[in-house]
């Protein structure tokens, strides 16, 4: 469950990226986040994962109020969330396998168990044969899938995807959307941002539209 309660985010320098936003995403729901560039989509997702903190208002994630949580507690919140970053954040100094292993190392999984999970996640996103490949040799779409594998390998209860279908052709983008739908179907709360609304409308899900940090009409 994600709940925003009159949340405002002002970046240092004074720019208000989000203004007095309130909404709820129920557990197991799949919701889209739409808006032009600069509307505040990434900012909203960063508030959910505690990467940025609200200037005012409350952000509740799985019944924890992130606005009141100490910084030292935020990592444990993040460990229950999977994030597909807009800029991927792939580590190019290690193999595909080791990239996906990272979240499990952080949580402290048993090695053997972790390896099994990494293989399952790579299999799920269609990268089963590319375990030992260095990410630089993956195509753009494959890199996107690598990010998704890393975001779901620890089976988070919330999955955040920041423009996961950007720069992909429509067929590939639909593939990726199907992938997210399959996580939603096993009970994961999914929040996906995009500026191409046509892709979302096919799915008939709730769409939160942002414009300059507020709900668009």
């Amino acid at each position, binding site marked *: 469950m994600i709940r925003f309660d009159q949340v405002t985010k002002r970046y240092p320098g004074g720019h208000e990226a989000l203004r007095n936003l309130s909404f709820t995403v129920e557990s197991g729901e799949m919701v889209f986040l739409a808006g032009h560039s600069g509307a505040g989509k990434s900012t909203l997702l960063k508030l959910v*994962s505690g990467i940025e903190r609200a200037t005012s208002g409350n952000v509740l994630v799985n019944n924890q109020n992130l606005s009141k949580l100490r910084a030292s507690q935020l990592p444990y919140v993040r460990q229950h969330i999977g994030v597909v970053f807009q800029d991927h954040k792939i580590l190019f100094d290690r193999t595909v396998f080791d990239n996906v292993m990272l979240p499990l190392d*952080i949580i402290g999984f048993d090695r053997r168990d972790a390896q099994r999970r990494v293989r399952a996640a790579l299999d799920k996103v269609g990268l089963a044969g590319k375990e030992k490949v260095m990410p630089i040799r993956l195509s753009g779409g494959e890199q996107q899938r690598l990010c998704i594998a890393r975001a779901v390998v620890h089976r988070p209860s919330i999955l955040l995807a920041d423009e996961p279908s950007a720069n992909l052709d429509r067929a590939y983008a639909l593939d990726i959307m199907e992938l997210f739908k399959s996580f939603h179907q096993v009970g994961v709360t999914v929040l996906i941002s995009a500026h191409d609304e046509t892709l979302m409308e096919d799915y008939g899900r709730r769409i939160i539209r942002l414009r300059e940090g507020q709900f668009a009409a």
Partner: protein
Amino acid sequence: MKHYLYLHAQSARSALLKILRQPFGNLLNLLMLAIALALPVSLYLGVSSLQQWTAKLNTTPQITLFMELSSEQADLAAVESSLKHHPRVASFRFVHKDAALKELEQRSGLNAISEGLGSNPLPHAFIVTPQALEPAMLDLLQKELSGLPMVELAQFDATWARKLHAMITLAGQLAWLLAVVFALAMVLINHNTIRMQILARQEEIAVSKLIGATDSFIRRPFLYHAAWQGGLSALLCWGLSSWLAYQANPALAEFASLYGIDAQLRSLQPLEVLGVLLGAMLLSMLGARLAADHHLRKNQPA
């Protein structure tokens, strides 16, 4: 708990593997640390060996009490009885002024001193051996003895022993000073190597934090790296100081045998090895911890 230990064992293992994977660069680092350790350790060993030998030497100084020329039999008896009952006097010996004169004549080869002078110019004397005492206590004893009735002068005849003692004490203090300086160096060297490692892994750290890594998770590999680095360099230092002792001992033994002493530079005892090992590990980890904390603080999200 078991899982927690498992995770730490894994971190320790992978930190060691990382060191072994770059043996050359790390060996240089280890040698630098080992030498930094070996300097104070060798000095310490030298000093404590020296203390062992000098304890065997008869370095207890003697105090000679010269009586006034006018002292009489009764005065001598009085001094003798005070010496006999003094708790800090181990033994003493009376030298009659005639015996002293005879000895002087023999030693100088001038048989006619007494004839030329008419009377004996030398005083009676007591040669006092104090119980082994600290230099400060010896000074006190000397003052006390010179205050006895009819004692003209109480004189040390072994100031060299006091100088030696003072030098050993000084060297000991120097060893500690060096230890402090090199402990600091240990922290700084580790701070620097770990800082470089952190810079090289900056991106990994940033991404790890974004996906839920705690500060202690970020620090852990660096702390283990530093601990291995410190531990291995302590072992190297042990080897180095033993090798030094092994190299120096034959020459030393030959030199010392001229004085009839059995002198050996000693090596570190097991307990001392453990102390150096733990000390080096802790100092290294302190350096790593400071470097990691600095990085984490600098890169904290608002």
